Structure formats: C-alpha cells, structure tokens
C-alpha cells in the first residue's frame, strides 16, 4: 500500500483536546443545569440544589452508561481531582468570608465538637459495627481495624454538604457557625484518623504496638497546628505582598488566590490538614489584605471566589450522582443499614453530650432545638466519598462495600436530611438569620460595648472572649499592622 496522504482540508483531532474539552463541557452542563433549576421556581423551594445536581448527575450517568459512551474511570469522581481542584475553592471561599466574630466567639464550642464529637463518632461507629459483625448481625465478618477505617472516613461532617444546605436555609448565625465551623475544623481529626487507620492496615493488625497509637496521637497536634501555621504564614505573606501592589492593582486578586492555593498544597504535601491551612489562611489574608487592596480588587476577589466555589460545588454533586451509576457496587443491606443507624445515633448522642457540657459555660445556651438542628446538620458528603475511593483494595478487601455504603449515607444525608431540614426548621421555629445593614450608631455603640465588656472582664479577673479580642487588637495594632499595612 503505497498511498500517499494528501493534505487534508479539514481534520478532526479530538484526542488532542479531549481533557479540557470534557472539563469545559462539564462546567457548561452543570451551570446550565443550575440556571435551569432556578428558571422553574418551585423546584429549588422544595429541593436543595445539591439534591437536584446529584439527580442530574445520576441521569447523565445512566445515559452515558446505557449508550456505552462512558468507558468508566474518566467520567467518575476522581479523588485526586477532588482534593486538588474541587475542594480548595469551596474551603477557601468559606475561610475567606468567615464571619470572624461569630467564629471566634464560639470557638470553644466549635473545637470541642470538631475534635471530641468526631472522635466519639469514629470510635462509636467503629466499635458498634465490629460488634454487629462479631455477633453475626452483619454477615460479612470485618476486622476491628477495618471497621475503624470505615468509621474514620464516615464520621466527619462535610463542609461542602453543610454549606450547600445551610446557605439556603439561613438559620441564625450561632447555629450556622457552630455546625459549619465544626465541619471545617474537624478536618484535622479526620486527616489524622484516616491516615492512621490507613497506615495501620499497611502495618497489619497483628503487628500494631502501643507506640503506633502514641505516634498517631502526637501526629494529631502536628497535623492541626502545622496546617494552621502554614495557613497563617501564607496569609501573612499575602498581606505583606499586597502592601506593595499600589501600582499594579490588577495583580492583587491573583496573590490572594495563588497564596491560598499554595498554602493548601504545602499542607497537603506534608500530609497536614489542608482544610485548616485554607481556612486560617483565608481568615488571616482577608484581615489584612482587604485593607491593602483597592475596593475593586476586593470585589473581584469576592466574586471570583464565590464563582469558583459555586462551580466546584456544582461539579462535585453532579459527579457524585454520576459516579454512583458508573461505579461497580457491592451493596450489603445489613452493613448499610447498621452504618446509617450508627451514624445517626452517635451524631445525636455526641451533640447532646457535648452541648450539655458546653452549656455549663456558655452565655447563650444551646437549646434542645439547637441541638436537634446541630445533629440534623451532620451531613456527610464528597470528602467521605473520595476518602473511600482512595482506599487501597489490596489492604482492604471490603473497599467496594465501603464505597457503596458511603454513597448511600451521603445520599441519605443530602436527600433525606437536606430536603426535610427546611420544613423542620420552619416547624420548630428556629431563629433565622436576618440581613441587616448596620447603622453608624450600631457600629459605634457596639464597638463601645465591646471595649466596655473587655474592661469589665479584666476588672473581675476573667479572660472572656471580649478581653482576649481586646488584647489581640492591641498587639495587632501595635506590631502587625505597621508591618503589613
């Protein structure tokens, strides 16, 4: 065959552009879908957007699956993509636009929930699942360690799911910040527990020694404080750089984004908590850089961040739906039911127990209704799903079962809890957030009251959050601001 190729008038090389093309198509489809939901107004009133997106994902998945267009893999949610590209924008947006005052006023409660409640859930769910398996109520016999592997990934409340649902229902600020803060700050615990369990399976259950647990415990502090520190450092660097951007205003938003992302990547590269790095990076960065940047840049940052976060969230939920259809499944009703049951039981007991504890010290107590919403807000989402995907099938033969069970639990929390939470909030008359623009008077008198309360706290010799704020402000004004502004 000695045919010479003639120069072609038109050629078609889809391979060349496939990846970016598919990504763009995805974003396009997801965003058009979102517009579609809002065109028909009744839908978003009944269903949260996340439910609709998952459903759409399922539909697309079914189409791809039966037309045999999808060669699996490529179109499912990939853990790497998730952790490197989809998750950071959402967390950064949340950290950057964190209502700081509410967050730090409730930080004790949030931390206690994030750490103790996550541990309580992990241990509780793990032990109970093992117990059920031991008693034979769950037919497949699973070792204790593997039960813990599963419970460590399913216990944590997911910030993406919580944001998606709670942004829409607009409960009062305290309730919102507690549930949402917990979902962000529990990342440290989740990362440690997950890596610890993962590492333990590699060592093998019989070779474990006390020292491994001690290391795991110590690692917790490194992961948490390391992640936070990296975030704070990058935040400060960002603040310092924006001090000198007076003449190149267009670059200002870029620094905010690049440094935030670098903070996340740095933390991830050391297996520290990337979410904490982003959260605190965002908080610190905003505190100073907004004072340095032009108003236009601030607005740009805000909109760009919101847009990225929104797109990420949209894609995550569609992908979740899609992956469900395309992945192969190992559905064990007994395991699924018990997991779901224990997730609910330990969430509720943990919240009740810890609320009782914090109520001894809190000025505004968490009422029974608050506790109910806090338990109800314990949504699981994409993070758990991707952690399950990351499990190594060689070490953990139950991987597929875990993935399927996680999917069911994510669906349950997003659909059942997500759809019913609004009616529940209405029925229980939970106090809602109000949008108010503060007047000059309110601003000044509030500030006045803050100083007053700090003073009174100092006089009675109690360091409450007012006096801590006061001290922070003082040292901030004296030492940090001259450097950074």
């Amino acid at each position: 065959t000695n045919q010479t190729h003639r120069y072609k008038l038109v050629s078609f090389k889809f391979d060349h552009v496939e990846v970016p093309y598919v990504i763009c198509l995805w974003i396009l489809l997801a965003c058009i879908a979102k517009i579609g939901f809002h065109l028909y107004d009744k839908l978003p009133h009944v269903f949260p957007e996340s439910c609709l997106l998952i459903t759409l994902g399922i539909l697309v998945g079914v189409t791809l699956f039966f037309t045999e267009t999808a060669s699996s893999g490529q179109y499912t949610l990939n853990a790497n993509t998730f952790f490197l590209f989809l998750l950071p924008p959402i967390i950064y947006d949340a950290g950057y636009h964190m209502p700081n005052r509410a967050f730090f006023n409730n930080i004790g409660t949030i931390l206690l929930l994030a750490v103790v409640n996550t541990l309580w859930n992990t241990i509780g769910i793990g032990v109970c699942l093992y117990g059920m398996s031991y008693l034979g109520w769950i037919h497949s016999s699973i070792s204790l360690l593997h039960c813990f592997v599963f419970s460590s990934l399913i216990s944590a409340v997911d910030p993406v799911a919580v944001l998606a649902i709670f942004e829409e229902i607009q409960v009062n600020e305290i309730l919102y910040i507690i549930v949402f803060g917990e979902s962000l700050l529990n990342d440290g615990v989740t990362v440690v527990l997950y890596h610890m369990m993962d590492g333990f399976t590699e060592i093998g259950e019989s070779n474990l020694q006390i020292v491994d647990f001690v290391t795991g415990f110590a690692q917790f502090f490194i992961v948490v404080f390391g992640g936070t520190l990296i975030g704070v450092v990058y935040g400060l660097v960002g603040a310092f750089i924006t001090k000198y951007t007076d003449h190149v205003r267009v670059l200002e938003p870029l620094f905010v984004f690049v440094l935030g992302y670098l903070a996340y990547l740095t933390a991830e590269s050391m297996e520290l908590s990337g979410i904490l790095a982003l959260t605190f990076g965002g908080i610190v960065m905003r505190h100073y850089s907004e004072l340095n940047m032009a108003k236009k840049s601030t607005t740009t940052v805000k909109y760009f961040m919101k847009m990225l976060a929104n797109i990420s969230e949209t894609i995550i939920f569609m992908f979740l739906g899609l992956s469900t259809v395309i992945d192969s499944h190992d559905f064990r009703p007994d395991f699924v039911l018990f997991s779901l049951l224990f997730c609910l039981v330990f969430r509720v007991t943990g919240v009740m127990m810890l609320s009782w504890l914090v109520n001894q010290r809190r000025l505004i107590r968490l009422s029974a209704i608050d506790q109910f919403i806090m338990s109800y807000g314990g949504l699981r989402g994409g993070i758990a799903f991707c952690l399950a995907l990351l499990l190594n099938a060689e070490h953990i033969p139950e991987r597929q079962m875990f993935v399927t069970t996680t999917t069911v639990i994510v669906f349950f929390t997003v659909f059942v809890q997500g759809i019913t939470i609004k009616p529940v909030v209405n029925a229980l008359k939970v106090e809602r957030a109000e949008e108010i623009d503060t007047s000059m008077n309110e601003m000044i008198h509030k500030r006045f009251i803050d100083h007053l309360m700090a003073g009174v706290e100092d006089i009675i010799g109690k360091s409450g959050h007012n006096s801590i704020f006061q001290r922070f402000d003082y040292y901030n004004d004296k030492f940090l601001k001259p450097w950074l502004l």
Partner: protein
Amino acid sequence: MGTRSSMLQEEEISEIQRETGFSSNQIVRLYSRFTNLDKSDQGFLRRADFLRIPELAINPLGDRIVHAFFQESATDTVNFRQFMRVLARFRPVKKTATKNKLNDREEKLKFAFKMYDLDGDNMISRDELLNVLHMMVGANISDDQLGSIADRTISEVDLDKDENISFEEFVKAMERVDVEQKMSIRFLN
C-alpha cells in the same frame, strides 16, 4: 489581710443577693477578687487600685470604665456593695427571672449611655461623642473625618433635631442590637 476587709458577713451577702441577684457563690468569688484589688486593704477601692490592672491599661476606654464605678458611688472610693451594683448590670438576663434586678435591657443601656454622657445632662452631645470616638480609633483618623462620623451618627437618630442624642434616641438606635447578650458576662460560681 486585715480582718475588717476580708470578712464578708452572712447578712451582707444576702442583702447583696437581694439587691443584685447574684448567687452567694458568685458574691464570695467576686469578693475575693475585690480584696485582691484592694491593695491598701481598707475595704474600698480607689482609682489607682483599678488602674493597676495591667489589661485595663491597653483598653482605650479604660479610664472611662473605671470612672463608671465612681459615678455609681459618687465619691472617690468604691466599696464592695457599689462594686457589686455596677457588676450586676452585666448579669445575663434570664427570661423567667423577675425584673428590676439592675440587669434588664434598659439598665444595661442606661449604663452604656451614662458612660458617654460625662456631664450627666441625659444627652450625648457632639463633643461627648467625639471624645469617645477619639479614644476608640486612636490617631489613625483625622479630626475632620471623626467630626463627620460624629455628625452622621447624630443625624442618623436625632429625631427631635437638637443635635444631641437623648436616651430615648439611644435606645431607638440600639433597637436591633442584642444588648441582653452583648452586655452580659457569665459570672463563675
């Protein structure tokens, strides 16, 4: 520690309890703080005793807050009863509790208002407001800017157009602020 100041009589506790609504544990606790501050050990506090608190030194309103204690006593010393009366304003408001315990919304607001109103004419004048603004913002903002902030603040609530903020106008301005919560401290038992 002298015997006179370190003893807190049973009947005094119950009297303070009646007047302020503190529990006897809280009173005992605050009393030990009081005696701690009372360096001269005479059963009352002077200005210098307050100003010795290191954290208060960094509070821009530190002097004003201390002054509020002496406004209550109307002399240049503060005894334990007066000390407790001031602190009673900051007790958390309980929905079920009976009123008139010094800690309801009105009392809290009145306390804040009096701290602005140095001359006690029941008005926050432009000068009084400027004074406070000066203390709070430090040297970062120019006098002109502060002046326009003060003008805006007054004109925002000045219903009777007298260029002052009266207590009624102050209450109105704070309508949407959760004063009950912002001006409360959880006193330890």
